[in-house]
C-alpha cells in the first residue's frame, strides 16, 4: 500500500492499521471461532458498559432519579418515542429488539472514540450481520403477517399501469440493496472518521512545534466523531423502524 512508500520520506501514515483484528493472547496470528480478539474484547466491554448503565443504574428505581438512572431513562424514552412514532402502538413488541440494536451501536461507537480503543462497528462484518438480521426479519415478518400480499410492496398501485413493471424492478433492486447500504453507512462512517483522526495524528510528531495545530484540529474532529457516533446509531435504528414498517403495514 501507499503507506510503506510514504514511510521512506520520514512521514509514516498507517490509517488502516487500527482496524486490524488480532488475537489478544498467545501471540500467534491464527484465529479460530472462539479466539479472543481485540474485537470481541471491545464487544464484551460494550456489553459490560450497557449492563452497568441499565442494570446497576436502574437498580434504585427512585422516583426522583439519580444522574445515572436519568441517563438510562432518557435512552429508554428516546427509543420508545422513536418506535411509536414510526411503527405506531402496534410496533411496541419490537421495542426490545430495536432498543438493543440502538444501545449496542451507540455504545460501540462511543467506546470506539476512546484513544487506543477498537471501534467494533467500523467492521462491515459486524454491521453486516446486524443489517442482515434486520433484512431477514423484514422478509419473514412480511410474509407471515401479509402472506403473499407482501409482494404488493413492489407493485406501486398509485402509478399509471404501464409504468408499474418498471417501478417494480426499481423497487425490487432498492429493496435488496438495503442491507448493503444499511451496513456500509454505519461501518463506512466509523471507519472514515477514525482514519481521518489517524492521518492527522501522523502530522503531529512530523511538524514538531507546529504539531499543536493538527492536535487542536484532532480535538475538534473528536468532538465531531462523538456527534457522528450518536447520529449514526440513531440513523441505523430509525431505518430499522422504517424497514420494519414495510413488513407490518405495506403501504402501496
Amino acid at each position, binding site marked *: 500500500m501507499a503507506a510503506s512508500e510514504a514511510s521512506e520520506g520520514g512521514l509514516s501514515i498507517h490509517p488502516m492499521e487500527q482496524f486490524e483484528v488480532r488475537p489478544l493472547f498467545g501471540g500467534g496470528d491464527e484465529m479460530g471461532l472462539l479466539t479472543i480478539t481485540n474485537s470481541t474484547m471491545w464487544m464484551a466491554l460494550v456489553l459490560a458498559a450497557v449492563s452497568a448503565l441499565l442494570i446497576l443504574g436502574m437498580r434504585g428505581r427512585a422516583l426522583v432519579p439519580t444522574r445515572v438512572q436519568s441517563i438510562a431513562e432518557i435512552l429508554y424514552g428516546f427509543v420508545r418515542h422513536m418506535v411509536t412514532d414510526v411503527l405506531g402502538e402496534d410496533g411496541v413488541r419490537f421495542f426490545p429488539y430495536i432498543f438493543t440494536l440502538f444501545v449496542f451501536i451507540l455504545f460501540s461507537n462511543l467506546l470506539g472514540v476512546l484513544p487506543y480503543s477498537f471501534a467494533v462497528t467500523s467492521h462491515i462484518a459486524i454491521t453486516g450481520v446486524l443489517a442482515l438480521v434486520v433484512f431477514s426479519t423484514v422478509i419473514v415478518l412480511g410474509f407471515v403477517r401479509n402472506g403473499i400480499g407482501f409482494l404488493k410492496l413492489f407493485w406501486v398501485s398509485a402509478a399509471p399501469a404501464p409504468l408499474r413493471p418498471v417501478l417494480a424492478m426499481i423497487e425490487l433492486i432498492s429493496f435488496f440493496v438495503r442491507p448493503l447500504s444499511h451496513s*456500509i453507512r454505519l461501518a463506512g*462512517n466509523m471507519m472514515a472518521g477514525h482514519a481521518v483522526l489517524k492521518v492527522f495524528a501522523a502530522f503531529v510528531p512530523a511538524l514538531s512545534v507546529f504539531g499543536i495545530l493538527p492536535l487542536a484540529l484532532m480535538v475538534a474532529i473528536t468532538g465531531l466523531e462523538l456527534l457522528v457516533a450518536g447520529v449514526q446509531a440513531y440513523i441505523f435504528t430509525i431505518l430499522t423502524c422504517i424497514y420494519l414498517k414495510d413488513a407490518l403495514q405495506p403501504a402501496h
Partner: protein
Amino acid sequence: MEAEAAALLGKYIGAGLACIAMAGAGIGIGQLVGSYLSGALRNPAAAKEQVATLFLGIAFAEAMGIFGFLIAMLLLFAV
C-alpha cells in the same frame, strides 16, 4: 512489469476518481439542510417534527458518498 505498473496507476487514479462521489453527497446534504432551514424559519412551529425526516434524508444522501468511499477502499485494498 509495464502492465503491473499501469494497473497500479489505474488503481490509484480510480480511487481518486471515486472520491468525486463525495461532491455529490456534499451537494445533496447542503440542499437538504438549506431547504430544511428555509422551511423551518418560515414555520418554526412545525420544524421540530421534521428533524427525524431531515436526518433520514441526510443518511440517504450520504450513502452515495459512502459508496464512493467504499469503492475507493475496494480499489486500494481488495482489487
